[in-house]
């Protein structure tokens, strides 16, 4: 389907997985954000390449929109929040960086095992789907093992990329409306998180979610 050879596709997938793992390994929030931006650029490029290959103008337009919204607006918004909150470190909890990378590797292996039966239909997308699931796992792991709410937002964004990729490889092009909706959804989500972070900063003077324990009834 995609307009380039298998080796090129594998290279792109390697970059996607690698950036995901690097997000897990990042010590500074800003690094994780940068890795995520790189990943999103490549996801968008994948979509645009698909559009060019199929001569589908609307997919190309959508890819460009995705590039602008996700790789452009969201990083700017999040950077601003980071600057106002003066947050630097990701705040490891439960697992240190190295250990989380090991767990993330394990989860990647797990995702290969899990997707085995699903790939009986399309052996050539084996890597793509497995890596998509692996990204979802990495996102959840990231959310679980970091204290700063901004990292959790990045986790959600990582999961979103994973879901997008899974959809891309499984369905060969979801209805455009659904993809648009999903992209818009995450944009709105980030705006809400920006407001929430502001509230958290005002209330707790930090983005550490451990403070929210006091909200428990």
């Amino acid at each position, binding site marked *: 389907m995609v307009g380039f050879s298998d080796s090129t596709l594998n290279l792109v997938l390697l970059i996607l997985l690698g950036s995901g793992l690097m997000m897990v390994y990042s010590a500074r929030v800003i690094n994780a954000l940068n890795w995520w931006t790189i990943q999103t650029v490549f996801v968008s490029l994948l979509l645009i390449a698909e559009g060019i290959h199929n001569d589908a103008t609307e997919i190309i337009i959508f890819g460009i929109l995705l590039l602008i919204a996700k790789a452009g607006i969201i990083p700017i918004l999040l950077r601003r929040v980071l600057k106002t909150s003066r947050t630097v470190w990701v705040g490891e*909890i*439960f697992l240190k960086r190295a250990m989380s990378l090991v767990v993330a590797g394990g989860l990647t292996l*797990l995702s290969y095992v*899990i*997707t*085995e*039966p*699903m790939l009986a239909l399309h052996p050539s997308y084996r890597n793509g789907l497995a890596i998509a*699931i692996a990204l*979802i*796992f990495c996102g*959840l*792991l990231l*959310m*679980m*093992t970091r204290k700063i709410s901004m990292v*959790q937002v990045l986790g959600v964004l990582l999961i979103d990329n994973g879901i997008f990729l899974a959809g891309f490889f499984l369905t060969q092009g979801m209805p455009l409306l659904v993809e648009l909706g999903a992209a818009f959804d995450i944009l709105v989500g980030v705006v809400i998180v920006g407001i929430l972070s502001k509230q958290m900063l005002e209330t707790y003077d930090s983005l550490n*979610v*451990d403070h*929210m*324990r*006091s*909200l*428990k009834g």
Partner: protein
Amino acid sequence: MVNKESQSVRQLLMSISVALAAVGLVWGTFLISQGGEWIKTGWRFSTDAGAGLSLTWKMDGLTVFFLFILLLGQGLSSLYAVGYLKEYEEKKKSLVSFYVPWFLFLGSMVGVLLADDGFTFLLTWEMMSLFSFFLVLYEHDEPQNRKSAYIYLVMTHVATIFLFAATLFLQAKTGSFAFQEWANVVPSLSTIELNLIFVALFIGLGTKAGFVPFHIWLPYAHSAAPSPVSALMSGVMVKVALYLMIRLVWLTLGPGPVWWGWLFLIVGAFSAVVGILAASTQSDLKKLLAFSTIENVGILTMALGSAFLARSWNSSWAMDLAFIAFFWHTLQHMLFKTLLFMGAGNIIQATHTRNLERLGGLLRRMPKTGFAALLGIVGITALPPLGGFWGELMLFQSLWENTIHLSDGWSKVFLPLAIGILALVGGLSIATFVKWFGISFLGQARSPAAASAKESDPVQTMVPLVVGGLAALTVLWPAMTLALINLPLSVIRTGDVIGISSSAVGKPLLMSSVYLGVILLLTTVIVLLTKRATRKVTATWNCGAALTPSMQYTAGGITNPIRVLFAKVLGSRPKVKGDFAGTQYSLRSLTYTGSVKEVTEDIFIRPLIRGLLWSSAQVRKLQSGSIHLYLAYLLVTLVAVLILGS
């Protein structure tokens, strides 16, 4: 001042309630006097409930008997309420939240009695629970009453879960809600299924009836409700639960194994003893009566147990005796408990306290209430001339009859034991009510409130006397009472139906009027003879000192021997503290603090609640408040679903 308008509303609504009851009674009497097969086989009718469903109803002799009890209770309590509710009007408390649940409560009880299928039964049953809950909650200004109402609500709902289980199980087995269908399928059920259904019904209905250990709500709810409501709940509602025991267990589930009878007998005996022991140590006017209701439900359950045993052993003689005892005592207990709750209501309105330690000397100030209460006490303690005695006598005979008919050795040990327990309960109930009457009506006033008490409204003194008169009438004209009891008996008994009054079982009862007549005659003669003699009334001699209220028995003191004797069972913890003012001989003051607790509550209910709270706490640990943990649940779930799915 009482608002004219609300006064007329009260009189109008309560008159409607009384009139409805009266019309029902007259119409019912007319229908029955016509006779007919329907008394035995039932007369069915149904209401369309929409969606192709209909609520089915059935009226037969058994229903008619309990409807009679209900309508009589309704009429008397409503009439009493005309006077009783005046106080709330004076306090400017809205009565709307009394009237609405009052009528709906009565209506739903009629519905429960008439229901002929599981769905209708559960619907009306839940309505009955809910509206009685609202009535208990009527005086919700006091936190104590709110607590009582909530205990009642929780217990009644837990019980209903069991009823739902039994009903839905039978529905799944038969594909129908109709009782008749259930009865047809029962023979094909396995023993385990049958026993499980029985246990579910026993717990579900037993909670409402107040079997120990499911009784804990009863003393709270019955004493927190306004007096007319207490009278209805104690007199009628617990009987509705017993009615369903007969309808669902006896008539639908059939004979069943022998242990059902034993269970009824043992739980009944246990309830009677626990109920009366708790009553004897109470110093709350209405709680004491509520505990006595538990005792009487226990006696009724023993009668049911005796009937079940007699059926298993094919002894129709003992079964008839047990059922006559059951229905006779049901009627009598309704009358006497209604009367006593009305008496308690009068005392509470006159003195504004329920604490016996603060009453005393009321007989001189409230003579009519006192006389009526005395009638009620003679009845409820089963003293000879009035009806309570005859019911318990029949029960004794039935138990004895069962003992003779026995082949199995265990029963020869246990049945006489049950007879002994019944005798013990009778004795304790006399002690209890001597205390209830003696402390509140006799002696000197123990508080200014009691000293300034005034006789109640004429309606409120007239109705208890009417109830007492009715109770005397049931004994004076036993043929009528037996004709009424014959109605349910003709449904329950299979085979030939002869009027009880002409059968050998009923003959001794016909003598009851003679005994009453003789005693009345003797009393009259004695009164007339002693009137001639010269009497001289002087002050009680007290070694020259003046009499003070503190010289008399206290409510705690009069039944202290019982408390000492049954210390283990009552969980009694007496503590006596003397202040010797530094010397060894002169005593300045002596303080006695004693407390009893409900041991059954400690044994059955508290561990249950503790277990429930513990498991809830375990589940609550999942909700730690940590976002990371919540996300971990998400990850684990996702991985698990993906692994399981592939």
